């Protein structure tokens, strides 16, 4: 503990005691820096953070007392204080002696408040590091002086760079254990420089430290490293430019979060300014519509502002009554961001369940939420070797590059230009879990060159000519449950009622439109997507479409529901139990599946996810096909 005495970086007790008003005045002008610390299990990361908290007096007496007793009981530093114990959190990990999730720590110096994302260096590293790095201005990469640049060092540096961190500190730790040897430090710096250049890190700041002993943490050079002529870690952290300051110099963008409408006289658009500055009178463009107006006022609780900058939450009123709602982006009129629906992106997979290529996920980017699919990855990256590997899908902690197709245009910028308009998450539609994070690279040219052709005869015209309301009656259920039989019966009865219909049947479609598809999960998803698109065209043409497909996955049925107009999709669950369907075995498929001659057979070795809220449920145990059909028709009438 010898060298933890007050240094100029920290709160001066004397000023606090003598003139608290002067102290408060000074501290109101502090800025904030967020950084991430990365290191593998034994690099001394927790010790370094514990030290930063300790030195900035973020540890109170009672916590210190607990720390001292814990240090003796479960610590790894003998009788000395084990700073690492300060920064562990949940009970489970205290027992295992590892950190299992991102934890956020806080400390401040005279000049800045710091938020540290403390990320573990082991198994869940990618997921946790990506989370911690997403909000960081700077990364501290820890290297054990005894071990040098390791595979983990490369992995951490690569991930930080992918997430757009441009300020990197290489902290060569445990210098006390190598006798503060300058040659060791310089060799590690040279190794790292060679590696950094290969992944695009142009510059970094290297500092020789000892988190345990305190060298070059708050003051440099420490007496043990007279040969070092750079800044201390704290000096460096206090002087680096923060991201929001850099963002302020870019063109204006504000994603609209909420329309503020207290009464008929006020209509404001609330949001956090992602980049640039805004003042009343500035010309703006609302995207994706492209309509222009000018800012009438920048409204806040504290009064209207002359100007607001990136990082501030404000409410803008516009001079003209133009359409603008949540998900729109208000931008500089002469320099707006792009709008597109197909992109290339880096995708980081965060969930236990693999990516389903072609399945619809919710994609949230700034305040926009759309349905999107990820195509087969172009490659995935081995984060240890930076090699590009072929991949059919992405699994937990994989990072890959793939095309992403959205069902509606998105206002975006490349992630490298703007984190807010380039970073997105993917959400599983069935479980609502956040399954991936992504960074947009650029839009695909075809999305810029393919436009919707407006036609004069609309879907409403088509439907009116047929004197009916288009519907898609989507029959789902196990093989042999009676979908085709019932659908056929429904179509017969509708025909007697002079309704214009078309029945799409699973087996029939696979003879033509989908004969190139097999029965893997990816192919089954694509099968349903194509059928959904065909059903949509037919519904646009005014028809009542009946489809009979097993369609085992909720997500794909939801995908089709989302493609269609509201209330057009009617999910009909043919709820025949597996035993009954298997006993019938009309096509002999269950027998083949049981004998192992048929793979991926729904209900046997591939799951069936029954609907959670089907519009109609029928079965073929209590009802004849005719009764089931009559029941369905009663439920869907009137169709005009």
């Amino acid at each position, binding site marked *: 503990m010898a060298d933890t005495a007050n240094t100029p970086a920290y709160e001066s007790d004397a000023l606090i005691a003598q003139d608290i008003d002067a102290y408060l005045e000074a501290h109101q002008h502090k800025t904030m820096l967020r950084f991430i610390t990365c290191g593998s299990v034994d690099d001394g990361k927790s010790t370094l953070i514990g030290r930063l908290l300790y030195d900035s007096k*973020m540890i*109170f007496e009672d916590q210190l007392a607990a720390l001292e007793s814990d240090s003796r009981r479960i610590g790894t530093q003998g009788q000395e204080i084990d700073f690492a114990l300060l920064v562990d959190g949940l009970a489970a990990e205290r027992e295992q002696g590892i950190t299992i999730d991102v934890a956020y720590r806080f400390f401040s110096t005279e000049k800045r408040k710091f938020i540290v994302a403390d990320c573990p260096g082991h198994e869940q590293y990618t997921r946790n590091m990506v989370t911690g790095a997403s909000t960081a201005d700077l990364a501290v990469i820890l290297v054990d002086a005894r071990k040098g640049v390791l595979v983990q060092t490369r992995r951490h540096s690569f991930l930080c760079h992918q997430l757009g961190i441009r300020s990197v500190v290489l902290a060569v730790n445990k210098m006390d254990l190598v006798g503060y040897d300058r040659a060791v430090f310089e060799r590690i710096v040279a190794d790292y420089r060679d590696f950094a250049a290969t992944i695009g890190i142009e510059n970094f700041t290297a500092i020789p430290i000892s988190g345990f002993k305190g060298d070059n943490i708050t003051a440099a050079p420490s007496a043990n490293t007279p040969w070092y002529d750079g800044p201390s870690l704290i000096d460096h952290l206090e002087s680096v430019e923060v991201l929001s300051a850099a963002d302020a110099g870019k063109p204006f963008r504000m994603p609209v*979060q909420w329309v503020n409408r*207290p009464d008929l006289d006020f209509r404001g658009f609330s949001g956090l300014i992602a980049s640039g500055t805004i003042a009343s009178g500035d010309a703006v463009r609302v995207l994706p519509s492209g309509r222009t107006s000018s800012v009438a006022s920048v409204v806040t609780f504290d009064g209207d502002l002359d100007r607001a900058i990136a990082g501030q939450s404000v409410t803008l009123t516009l001079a003209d009554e133009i359409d603008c709602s949540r998900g729109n982006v208000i931008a500089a009129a002469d320099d707006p961001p792009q709008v597109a629906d197909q992109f290339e992106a880096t995708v980081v997979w965060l969930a236990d369940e693999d990516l389903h290529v072609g399945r619809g996920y919710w994609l*949230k980017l700034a305040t926009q939420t759309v349905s999107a699919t990820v195509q087969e990855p172009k490659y995935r990256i081995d984060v240890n070797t930076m090699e590009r590997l072929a991949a059919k899908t992405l699994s937990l902690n994989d990072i890959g590059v793939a095309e992403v197709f959205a069902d509606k245009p998105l206002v975006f910028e490349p992630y490298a230009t703007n984190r807010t308009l380039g970073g997105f998450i993917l959400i599983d539609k069935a479980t609502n879990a956040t399954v991936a994070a992504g960074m947009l690279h650029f839009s695909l040219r075809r999305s810029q060159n393919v436009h919707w052709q407006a036609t004069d005869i609309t879907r409403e015209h088509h439907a009116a000519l047929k004197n009916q309301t288009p519907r898609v009656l989507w029959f789902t259920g196990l093989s042999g449950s009676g979908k085709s039989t019932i659908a056929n019966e429904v179509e017969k009865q509708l025909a007697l009622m002079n309704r214009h219909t078309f029945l799409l049947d699973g087996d029939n479609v696979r003879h033509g439109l989908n004969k190139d598809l097999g029965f893997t999960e990816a192919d089954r998803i694509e099968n349903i997507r194509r059928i959904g698109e065909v059903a949509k065209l037919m519904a646009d043409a005014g028809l009542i479409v009946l489809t009979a497909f097993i369609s085992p996955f909720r997500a794909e049925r939801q995908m089709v529901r989302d493609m269609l107009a509201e209330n057009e999709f009617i999910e009909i669950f043919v709820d025949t139990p597996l035993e009954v369907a298997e006993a019938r075995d009309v096509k002999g498929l269950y027998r083949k599946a049981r004998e192992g001659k048929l793979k991926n057979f729904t209900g046997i070795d591939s799951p069936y996810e029954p609907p959670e809220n089907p519009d109609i449920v029928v079965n073929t145990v209590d009802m004849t096909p005719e009764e089931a059909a009559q029941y369905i028709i009663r439920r869907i009438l009137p169709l005009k």
Partner: protein
Amino acid sequence: MRPYVSAPMTELPTLTHLQRLEAEAIHVMREVVAEAERPVMLYSMGKDSAVMLHVARKAFYPSPPPFPLLHVDTTWKFKAMYELRDRAAAEAGMDLLVHRNLEAQERGINPFDHGPLHTDMWKTEGLKQALDQYGFDAAFGGARRDEEKSRAKERIFSFRTASHGWDPKNQRPELWNLYNARKRKGESIRVFPLSNWTELDIWQYIHLEGIEIVPLYFSAPRPTVEREGMLLMVDDDRFPLAPGEEPVMRSIRFRTLGCYPLTGAVESEAATLPEVIQEMLLTTTSERQGRAIDKDEGGAGMEVKKQQGYF
């Protein structure tokens, strides 16, 4: 916060840490209002609640915050807290809902006779009841990550099952400032807009913004008794005194406020906000130590409570 005043384009100021924390909290609140069906703000009359309410008024100005305040009452708060509660809600133009656990009331559960059961029934159960009764699907709370070890890993959007359970191993990753607020029917989210604030940030913000807080945070002569090393204030005649015991007038204040029989005071002369901040900066005892609750169930008190549904 003082509005930012125009400066030439060439020298844009960097936002201060308090401006950034405020902007982040506003962003979080607006996301919840845009995506949740029935949000509510938990309001406990403490200093963190005061800051949260103030930020909410800023977030939606000129509209009033589009959600009600909910106070889960235990009937054992300090009198001064009840007084501020009703006034603060009226000033913000918000509805105030007060919920008391009827079963706890009928059974006469109190902090003197029932120990941990008091917190469990009035607060933990009371909160669950209130959220279920009104069907709230998102509840703002004023918790901070710097308060306690298990909170350091809490997400800003924290998911609870339909039975209000918290699974620390199954939380959604939270990237950038993108929050996934989707949930199934019956599930709810606890949202902590002040996650990244420290105790000092809270005090500085109160100072800078002139936010009214309960006078108990400031030192004054108050009637006290000592119990198990804690200095307790005798706030009303429900406080059971030992035979011959007389409350002693001491100059005290509180660093944290809860049920008065469970909240320890500190002896202090700090009667103004700068003096309170001065004392806080020079002090060496952490904030929650004045509360008995963290010490239950060994070292992992708060974590266990959260798994059971405590806020």
